[in-house]
């Protein structure tokens, strides 16, 4: 009342136009808090940018590969002495038989182009080539025996150091300490590029191919382990989604509230926090040592990852079931729907976006998991062949993408280090795709009404 009268008389006692000390203090603390928030986000973004830049910077070269294109004379006297083109006989000629052909072809090609060759031995010059080059030629010949006797143009892998030279990984200074390659090799390589015999292009084999032995990084690819990961994800999805959703529906909607369900609830929460390597050793003991499932198989990997993913899916499914308003359940029960009808007709569709998001996040987690795979033998195994069917896809030894990356990062050759980064790009691509699918699904289901 007194304020009212004073405002009529002129300036009010507590003018709103003047900020008092207390308000100033509160405003200042709010501004500080906002600044902390912005700072935290900026720091996070910094890390993210650093991460992406370093991954892309290190990994992108892995997608490119230097190739040497030369004509190779497929001498009949070396490759098929009998002249019968009988595959069984021709298979007896190993890659060692092809090696001189390839080496001589390289020498001849240089001579033809007039590139100076200071090496007396063809073997020394051939260090430009990958040691898998003879095998490349052999595979082509065995696929098509009629090529024997002809001179065929081949696109052969360059050695990892030559490859590294063009990607800036190998410098001339570094070669002084390297017994494998001389500066002269690099001169020849430069000349070959100028002559159009050598080029660096996109390498599809890195994405689609199989892993290679330690000394041949230029041949290694992530394709087979990608298939291994795919089969594992199929196992994880087919097991963890139905089991997880069924378990959560039971616990959330049907189970009585008593100490047993409380105990189960606590344990599920705890399981979500169990280190993944523990699941690995459990899988080793149960699936391999007890159930005698094959080692290193995606089936076993999938089973182990299912155990790991289940708590995540159960927790997120229960959370989304809880988020469905109880009035919907009442509505359904009130018009005589059974408990199960009310859950499956009304509650579950509303909880679907949350369930799907949880499932995909669980799957993404499983896709990137390495530790449990260490223990069931999916690391260290060189998966050299694509599985030749669905059954063998599940049961034959294979690797998985993160395991393959770990394996490459472990190897000494810097060319493998580069491949590890490249593998990470592919893995991140998969994870991002899955997250985008999760977002799209969530939007789509939410947009229904």
């Amino acid at each position, binding site marked *: 009342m007194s304020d009212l009268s004073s405002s009529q008389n002129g300036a009010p006692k507590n003018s709103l136009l003047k900020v008092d000390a207390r308000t100033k203090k509160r405003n200042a603390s709010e501004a500080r808090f906002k600044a902390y928030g912005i700072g935290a986000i900026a720091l996070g973004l910094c890390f993210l940018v650093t991460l992406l830049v370093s991954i892309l910077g290190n990994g992108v070269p892995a997608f490119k590969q230097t190739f040497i294109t030369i004509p190779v004379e497929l001498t009949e006297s070396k490759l098929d002495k009998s002249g019968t083109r009988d595959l069984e006989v021709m298979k007896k000629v190993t890659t060692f038989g092809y090696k001189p052909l390839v080496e001589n072809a390289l020498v001849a090609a240089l001579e033809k182009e007039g590139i100076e060759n200071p090496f007396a031995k063809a073997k020394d010059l051939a260090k430009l080539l990958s040691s898998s080059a003879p095998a490349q030629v052999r595979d082509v010949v065995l696929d098509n025996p009629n090529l024997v006797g002809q001179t065929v143009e081949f696109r052969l892998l360059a050695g990892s150091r030559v490859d590294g030279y063009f990607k800036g990984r190998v410098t001339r200074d570094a070669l002084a300490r390297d017994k494998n390659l001389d500066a002269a090799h690099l001169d020849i390589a430069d000349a070959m590029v100028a002559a159009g015999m050598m080029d660096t292009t996109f390498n599809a084999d890195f994405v689609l191919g199989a892993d290679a032995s330690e000394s041949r990084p230029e041949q290694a690819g992530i394709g087979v382990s990608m298939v291994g990961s795919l089969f594992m994800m199929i196992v994880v999805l087919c097991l963890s989604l139905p089991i997880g959703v069924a378990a959560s529906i039971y616990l959330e909607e049907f189970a009585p509230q008593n100490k047993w369900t409380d105990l189960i609830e606590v344990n599920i929460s705890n399981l979500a926090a169990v280190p993944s390597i523990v699941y690995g050793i459990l899988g080793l003991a149960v699936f391999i040592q007890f159930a005698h499932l094959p080692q290193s198989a995606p089936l076993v990997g999938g089973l182990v990852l299912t155990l790991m993913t289940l708590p995540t899916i159960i927790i997120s499914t229960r959370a989304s079931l809880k988020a469905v308003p109880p*009035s919907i359940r009442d509505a359904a029960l*009130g018009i*005589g*729907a059974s408990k199960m009808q009310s859950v499956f*007709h009304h509650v579950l569709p509303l909880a679907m976006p949350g369930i799907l998001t949880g499932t995909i996040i669980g799957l993404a987690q499983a896709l990137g998991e390495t530790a449990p795979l260490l223990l069931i033998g999916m690391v260290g195994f060189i998966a050299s062949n694509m599985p030749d069917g669905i059954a063998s896809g599940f049961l034959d030894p294979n690797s998985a993408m993160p395991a393959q990356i770990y394996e490459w990062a472990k190897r000494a050759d810097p060319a493998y280090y580069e491949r590890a980064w490249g593998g990470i790009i592919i893995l991140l691509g998969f994870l991002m795709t899955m997250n985008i699918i999760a977002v799209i699904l969530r939007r789509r289901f939410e947009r229904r*009404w």
Partner: protein
Amino acid sequence: MNDMRIVKRDVEMNDIKISAKDVQVYYGDTHAIKDVNVEIKDKTVTAFIGPSGCGKSTFLRCLNRMNDTIDICRVSGEIKIEGEDIYDKRVDPVQLRAKVGMVFQKPNPFPKSIYDNIAYGPRIHGLARSKADLDDIVEKSLRRGAIWDEVKDRLHAPGTGLSGGQQQRLCIARAVATEPEVLLMDEPCSALDPIATAQVEELIDELRENFSVVIVTHSMQQAARVSQKTAFFHLGNLVEYGETAQIFTNPEDPRTESYITGRIG
């Protein structure tokens, strides 16, 4: 107790739909409903009034066993619908709820189309033999719910997109679509504005022709307007039950009088 005397005086035994005898409800250790005896007539609107927390909603939810969904809730005593004890072991609550429909305090349409909201009950109970049958049921129910004219052009629009009052009438239509014999309404107008309330009240009056309606309400004016019988609950007891006019003009119990005159509650 004097309320028993009133019941005996007012209700003829031949058209009694629901009779409750010595009903006790416990929530854990709390004794929420004490010794309630009441007989509800067929084709009548019966109002339950009383201050908040007096147990009127709890008792209402006993009549179609919605309390079964609450783990800690225990009901004893005897509630008979047409002479059959609904708490008998052989009674399936799902079947009971098809016979005793319910409308809730907050409008709660399913997040589906208007048509599917109404059709859901008949579908799960197998009331329609063909699509045309179902269309008929939907139209009839929406007409009974006094909402047909407003929604007939957008039956496939979401039910959640209607206004609050329309949603509540949709929920009433949904409840009558399963052809219940009793309709329980738990404060059906508490979330509605006066105009929507008036519409719903008018509707309740029309529903009386086919159903016996039990309505819980906070508003004594509403009870006076729509009901023929009124029961007054206080602290878990049924204090007084009788003709609405009599309860409001000449209550027998001093507690009823204090509540009606605004001294308690």
